[in-house]
């Protein structure tokens, strides 16, 4: 138990570093801004109480904000994603429910389930984030396009990392 918590924290820190040091520096056409750190919110076990999840997400977003010079943007989006996670989990629950103590991962619940789960969370997060960034509804469809393209890239990264975790 302690061991798995430690591993979770470690992979969270790695993800944040990955985001800050590498992905934040991708300058590719303004449409592609993958935000893979949101995977932290997905990996937290389903037994975690919702308030703890919210607080973790708050500080995750805050750290990302501090390093990308955009106070409040990532924090808001990440807290929203964390708040909607229990709802998403309830909606796409497998027939026999979640095993307590198991990872919410591709290895345990299969590609199809994980893909739906990840795309729901990523879409919620990116929609909130990109609209908070432009903060207006003019150019609505351009923002939608940015959300979709970036979500696709984020999902690609997350699936790669999941397969890596599974292989290990």
């Amino acid at each position, binding site marked *: 138990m302690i061991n798995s918590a430690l591993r979770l924290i470690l992979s969270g820190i790695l993800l944040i570093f990955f985001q800050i040091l590498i992905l934040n520096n991708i300058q590719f056409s303004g449409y592609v801004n993958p935000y893979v750190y949101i995977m932290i919110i997905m990996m937290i076990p389903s037994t975690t109480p919702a308030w703890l999840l919210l607080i973790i997400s708050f500080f995750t977003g805050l750290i990302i904000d501090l390093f990308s010079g955009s106070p409040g943007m990532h924090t808001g989006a990440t807290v929203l994603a964390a708040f909607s996670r229990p709802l998403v989990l309830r909606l796409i629950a497998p027939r026999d429910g979640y095993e307590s103590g198991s990872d919410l991962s591709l290895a345990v619940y299969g590609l199809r389930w994980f893909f739906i789960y990840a795309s729901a969370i990523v879409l919620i997060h990116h929609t909130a984030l990109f609209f908070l960034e432009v903060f*207006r509804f003019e150019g609505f469809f351009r923002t939608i396009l940015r959300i979709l393209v970036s979500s696709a890239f984020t999902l690609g990264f997350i699936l790669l990392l999941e397969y890596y975790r599974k292989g290990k």
Partner: protein
Amino acid sequence: MRNLLNFLLKYNNLIVFLILEGIALYLLANGNHYHNSRIVNGVQGITNGINERISNTRSYLSLREINSDLASQNSSLRNTISELAQEQSIDFTDVNDTVTGQQYSYTPARVINNSVNRQKNFFTIDKGTRQGIRPDMAVICGNSAAGMIVGCSENFSVAISMLNLDFKLSARLKSNGYFGSLTWDGKNYRYALLNEIPQHISVNVGDTIETTAYSAIFPEGIPIGTVVEPKKSGSDFYVIKVALFTDFKKLNYVDVIANLRRNERLELENRFK
């Protein structure tokens, strides 16, 4: 108290979410100039809209007062008019005001001789040097340009009509400010021609033509006519057919405009010639 605790327990996640999201939005609004100004503008837009509604309603409710105010103002103005009407026909109402500096003074006159059917038309008015009329003063009819004074006797003056082949007036398009010179082609007393407007400018039928202040004769912005037909000639300039506001066939009461600062201006301008 117990109910409150139950409520808090039941919705604890929602409350935590709202608090954290509130903090995030607070950071967003305070940490970013862009978001801050968007929010401030948005809130101001809402309050301005509400204020406008309130003031609209209020002004509607006070219509009765405004009405009686206007009525009393109207009657006092009528009194002033009837007082002035007795002096009016004699002279320029000349105010020697060196502080605010009145630039133009107006005097009314009647047209006593007029023609429209020659190539060089003039009209005569019933005031002359004794009433302060001098050559190179502008003549307007109603609110639109009519001509300018060219010669005065003691009690009469002759003005060159706009319907004269020698008449030239600096005029501009009211919509975009491009100016050219207005002449008459001697054909129809209802139309004049505006030249020297370059062809890259869009000129629409119905655009208003007005005077400029370049001549030191006419005040700026006296309406002349409207565009009827902007024709592209062979050169780089339009020849614009202008329907005149002034109907010279029924020219009767006119106003003569004296530019009180004309000499000062011409003196200064001549120094650089």
